């Protein structure tokens, strides 16, 4: 029987601890345990055999840290081969009667992936891939990815397994006492991602004893439609007379774990501190009550997507999908995409989150940009700082795949439709990377104008998805809101289809709500009522503008009326903000407080919203450039001087800069694309190997305020990239930042390359470790002690051009 079949019908017993047993046999702290496969094969084989003898169905090879980051390829191959041979030897020697399998064990790399750490996602995939290839060649029965404490690294490992072998793969994560992974993911989020990517079993190992892991495992049981793993520690270690002892002994370990099996856990074993005795006790306990065949696992049938950290479930409670990151009809966003202004896009995402969006649609489709590259970059940057799941919105399958690949979680795909070509392109991507798709009710014959026609397409999509192994629960049907101004019956067909798909086909639904009012005046009025009707007909998710007050009013009122808002608390909180808006509006209209405040004052005091409002007012009567030169810049200068003289602290300087930036956004919104006269180009980056960028971001903010055309290359930037950009822009100024002494050589190398390829460029350096002398010694033109100092130097260079 192969492992997959066995898993379907039985409770699977894994092995117990390896590391603690090796330490007892003399492994030193800090020594690589995998080398023992070669140096102490008899010890490793004996441990594996003891687990088989005590009833384990699966033993994990001693390859937890066997990867290219710890071994070169030749040694890695030797280590893994020996590890599998030791396990095979143990299987042959053991006379125990149960089914016996060997799992290739894969642990974490010990490095954090970008952007939290410095390991690139694709590099991580490649590292795991090599281990998988060698292990699969040796003839293991399955792969076990375990003790992973970061969701992104878990995805990299699972992807590597899927791309490099056909073996079954089971995945378990290590949790903190807060019930989350170290990097923040919840069990529901992990379940959503891993199940969708095709793991054969998922669950929890290490961390704590089985008692403390119970609530986390129960969360897995609640969410998962596949077998759940529990492989706990023998409690916590204590030092008794120089010997490490764990506080949960075999009988109670077996007792608690067996009780979790009764609750539905299907794959059990032990981790740190557990021994063959623990596994023996556990087998006995389970045999005492387990039937010959395990019960079928109930499919949960939940439509769920996830981000880095959180899961969002589709239910009767409607999900809001923010539509603002989409350049269609948005001049400022188009400009941001063309100029690579990712910070603007990120702040659009954050604003939608604060306005109540639960998912963000991401569409960067513009004719003149490289969509696959830009979509991937925007998804990567957004998921680095926002906890909302993303809806990846593109009609280009290449862009879709590259974004899905690096997405950390289970995304929404926008979209698939009833055309065979579309389904053949999208469903394989969903199967490989996981995800839930928005399915549009159109096909080769266009959009049907009857309810029956649209429902028929939905059924066709469901059937085709099934042939790819994709369940109906991973499709969200968009019955297409069409302009009611063009066809009076448009809303009726949309709503009728929605109702049938939600209530008769039992699938979830979505709509791009505002399309309904296209061509009409005061569109919000129609949108809000249509939204209410759609909700009542079974709308699960609305793709909409969360800044629309009318839509949000409908949303909160609907939830109250449907009993979805406990104690009406969400509504009351929302109503409060509506109240405040009215008061703010009245004040702005004629209050006395604000009349005292000028744009100059708002900037010097660092008041962002007033700065934007006052700037907007001034723009009605004064030329944009006059506002910049006579109001904003003098205010910034004043704060800058106060800062240099120690009268204002850095946070104050920054608050002013941020307020000025808000004013500049208003100016940009009114000026034509060519209207903003800027100073020279300034290329800025944190050097290779350094992931600290706050100082660099501060400098950038101030330089932008002073009119420099800043090209921000980000952090951990290779010298070649900085050189290339400097040459491309023929930039007269380059700013480099380094925080640590260890990354100064990278700065020196960057300067060396710049001198060769861009001899015209003036190079200014800064950062925690920099000094004037140090800067001179590595060949920089200028050392800047802080952001204002950089601005002053840049102004001088710009003046001499």
């Amino acid at each position, binding site marked *: 029987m192969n492992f997959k079949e066995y898993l379907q019908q039985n409770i699977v017993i894994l092995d117990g601890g390896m590391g603690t047993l090796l330490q007892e046999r003399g492994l030193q*702290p*800090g020594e690589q345990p995998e080398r023992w496969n070669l140096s102490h094969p008899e010890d490793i084989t004996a441990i594996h055999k003891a687990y088989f003898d005590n009833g384990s169905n699966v033993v994990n090879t001693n390859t937890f840290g066997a990867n290219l980051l710890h071994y070169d390829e030749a040694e890695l191959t030797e280590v893994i081969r020996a590890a599998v041979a030791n396990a095979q030897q143990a299987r042959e020697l053991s006379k125990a009667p149960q089914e016996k399998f060997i799992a290739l064990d894969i*642990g*974490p790399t*010990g*490095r*954090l992936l970008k*952007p*939290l*750490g*410095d*390991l690139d996602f694709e590099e991580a995939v490649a590292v795991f891939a090599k281990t998988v290839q060698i292990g699969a060649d040796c003839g293991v029965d399955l792969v076990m990815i375990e*003790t992973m*404490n*970061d969701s992104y690294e878990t995805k990299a490992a699972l992807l590597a397994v899927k791309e490099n072998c056909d073996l079954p793969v089971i995945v378990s994560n*290590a949790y*903190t*006492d*807060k019930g989350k992974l*170290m*990097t*923040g993911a919840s069990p529901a989020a992990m379940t959503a991602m891993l199940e969708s990517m095709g793991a054969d079993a998922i669950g929890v190992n*290490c961390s704590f004893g089985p008692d403390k892991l119970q609530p986390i495992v129960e969360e897995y049981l609640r969410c998962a439609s596949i077998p759940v793993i529990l492989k706990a520690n023998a409690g*916590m*270690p204590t*030092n008794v007379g120089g010997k*490490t002892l764990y506080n949960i002994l075999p009988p109670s370990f077996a007792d608690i774990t067996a009780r979790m099996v009764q609750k539905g856990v299907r794959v059990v074993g032990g981790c740190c501190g557990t021994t063959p005795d623990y596994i023996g006790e556990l087998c006995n306990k389970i045999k005492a009550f387990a039937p010959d065949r395990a019960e079928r696992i109930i499919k949960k049938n939940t439509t769920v997507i996830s981000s*880095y*950290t959180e899961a969002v479930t589709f239910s009767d409670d409607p999900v809001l999908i923010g539509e603002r990151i989409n350049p269609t009809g948005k001049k400022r966003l188009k400009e941001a995409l063309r100029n690579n202004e*990712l*910070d603007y896009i*990120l*702040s659009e995402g*954050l604003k939608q989150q604060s306005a109540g969006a639960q998912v963000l649609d991401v569409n960067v489709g513009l004719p003149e940009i490289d969509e696959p590259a830009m979509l991937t970059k925007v998804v990567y940057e957004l998921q*680095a*700082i*926002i906890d909302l799941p993303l809806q990846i919105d593109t009609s280009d399958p290449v862009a879709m795949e590259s974004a899905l690949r690096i997405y950390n979680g289970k995304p929404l795909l926008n979209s698939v439709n009833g055309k065979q070509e579309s389904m053949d392109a999208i469903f394989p991507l969903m199967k490989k990377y996981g995800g839930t798709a928005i399915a549009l009710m159109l096909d080769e014959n266009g959009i049907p104008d009857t309810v029956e026609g649209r429902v028929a397409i939905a059924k066709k999509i469901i059937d085709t998805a099934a042939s790819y192994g994709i369940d109906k629960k991973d499709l969200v049907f968009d019955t297409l809101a069409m302009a009611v101004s063009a066809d009076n019956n448009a809303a009726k067909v949309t709503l009728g289809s929605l109702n049938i798909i939600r209530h008769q086909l039992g699938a979830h639904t979505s709509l791009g709500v505002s399309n309904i009012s296209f061509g009409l005046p005061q569109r919000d009025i129609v949108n809000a009522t249509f939204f209410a009707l759609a909700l009542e007909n079974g709308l699960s998710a609305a793709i909409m503008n969360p800044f629309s007050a009318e839509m949000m009013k409908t949303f909160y009122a609907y939830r109250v009326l449907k009993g979805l808002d406990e104690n009406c608390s969400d509504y009351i909180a929302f109503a409060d903000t509506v109240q405040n808006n009215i008061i703010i509006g009245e004040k702005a209209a004629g209050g006395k407080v604000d009349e005292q405040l000028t744009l100059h004052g708002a900037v010097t005091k*660092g008041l962002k919203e007033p700065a934007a409002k006052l700037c907007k007012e001034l723009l009605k009567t004064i030329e944009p450039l006059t506002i910049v030169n006579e109001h904003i810049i003098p205010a910034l200068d004043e704060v800058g001087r106060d800062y240099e003289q120690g009268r204002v*602290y*850095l*946070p*104050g300087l*920054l*608050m002013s*800069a*941020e307020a000025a930036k808000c004013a500049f956004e208003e100016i940009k919104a009114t000026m034509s694309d060519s209207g903003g006269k800027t100073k020279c180009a300034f290329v800025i980056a944190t050097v290779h*190997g*350094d*992931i*600290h*960028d*706050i100082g660099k*971001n*501060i400098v950038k*903010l101030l330089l932008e305020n002073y009119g420099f055309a800043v090209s921000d290359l980000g952090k951990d930037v290779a010298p070649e990239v900085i050189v290339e950009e400097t040459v491309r822009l023929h930039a007269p100024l380059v700013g480099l930042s380094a*925080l*640590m*002494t*260890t*990354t100064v050589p990278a700065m020196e190398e960057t300067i060396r390359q710049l001198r060769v390829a861009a001899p015209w460029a003036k190079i200014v350096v800064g950062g925690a470790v920099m000094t004037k002398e140090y800067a001179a010694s590595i060949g920089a033109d200028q050392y800047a002690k802080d952001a204002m100092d950089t601005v002053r130097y840049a102004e001088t260079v710009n003046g001499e051009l």
Partner: protein
Amino acid sequence: MIRTLSFDAPSWDRCEIMRYARIRGANNSYDSLIDDCIRESEPLLTYRLCYTVLPVNTDGSIMIGNERVASQTIGKAIRDSKQVILFAATVGAPFDRLIARYSRVEPSKALILQAIGAERIESLCDAFCDQMNTELNDTGKRLTRRVSPGYGDIPLRLQKEIFAVLDCPRKIGLTLDKSLLMSPSKSVTAIAGITNECEEQADKCAACDKTDCAYRK
């Protein structure tokens, strides 16, 4: 044996936050900024630490993994201790995500959050040392002040050995990158002696040789 500990939030020290943000002596104009930042940080912070006890060789050196460490800075800090505590502490990755967010869109907050992170991790180390001192009290011992790689003559490359010995990635989710930087960034590794001397040592800043430090108290 490596022990892993999880702490409740140590009490907050606003003065320290202001010192790290270099706004010591500022008027109350930053109060609401600091309050906002604390409120956003609290749910994301975790306080985790792992440690082990190592012997001091008769020549004063300490074996940390594969490296025999003979450092004057350590020697001066631990004095005649026969054992040292080696520990690693972190306030976790989700807090780094918060800093990353504001670093991109609101650097003034990122700056305060950096200071909060520094204050939090130092407070965590203090809380741990207090707890150890309470435990050691019965035996008439106490901890000396702590020193870290990068202080004085303690090489940064020692981090590699410390991370291997303490199994930091697995125990507390703390990793070391190629440039020897720690991720999550608000983390500390340190060594403190276990001494028989009962007198309390001078303040951390007062004992430091770097007298031109901008953060010196």
